[in-house]
């Protein structure tokens, strides 16, 4: 048997949470897709950056707060979450407004490292250009 093909997958998230179902469905697809052991990363652009905002509390809305589920991504080897800097800035947000998401690096004695990386537009464009598969939510 030949080695399984590993492709570079990027999930691009451009919608705010709760107002539409895109964000929660997209996250679900990423978590399911993680089982296929591909090279997976996520990008958060436009209103998608709101998905990572900290202190989400849906108790009065009586719907599920799915933001803690982003913490599970690290356990599924989804540990590169790229956030476009320009999208954050347009929304008055910075790194300190985002949830602290981490993963344990198996190549570095399981050291805990941040998963969220803020990148500028050009860096993100380069990352998009190098993907084999891009899925949009």
């Amino acid at each position, binding site marked *: 048997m030949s080695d399984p093909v590993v492709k570079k997958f990027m999930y691009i998230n451009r*919608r*705010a*949470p*709760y*107002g*539409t179902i895109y964000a929660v469905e997209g996250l679900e697809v990423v978590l399911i897709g993680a089982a296929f052991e591909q090279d997976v990363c996520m990008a958060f652009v*436009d*209103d998608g950056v*709101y998905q990572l*905002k*900290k*202190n*989400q*509390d*849906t*108790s*009065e*809305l009586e*719907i599920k*707060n799915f*933001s803690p589920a982003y913490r599970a991504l690290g356990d599924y080897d989804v540990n590169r979450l790229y956030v476009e800097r320009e999208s954050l800035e*347009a*929304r*008055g947000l910075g790194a300190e407004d985002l949830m602290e998401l981490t993963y344990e690096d198996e190549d570095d004695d399981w050291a805990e490292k941040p998963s969220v990386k803020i990148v500028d537009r050009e860096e993100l464009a380069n990352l998009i250009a190098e993907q084999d598969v891009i899925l949009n939510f």
Partner: protein
Amino acid sequence: MLHTVNKSPFEKNSLETCLRLAKPGNDILLIEDAVYAAMDGTSVADTVSTAVENFKIYVLGPDLASRGIGQNELIKGIEVVDYDGFVRLAAENNTVQSWL
């Protein structure tokens, strides 16, 4: 008249159109993804700050909380209401116009 807006100002022009066509003194309530327009420091904050002078602008508290937006992060002059406040605004105004 009460105007409600439920779309993000960064994704749709619903708020922009509402502000263009509402009459001075009208009530405007930001709900769902439109609550992002109530945050200070954004690229639309200047537009919304100006609108606060012409309209009474409200924002729905539970929709702010679910999106992780604190009341200290809002543009000055915007009033936070709960679901009872939403009902009161709808009852007090003869007409409710929803900008979708």
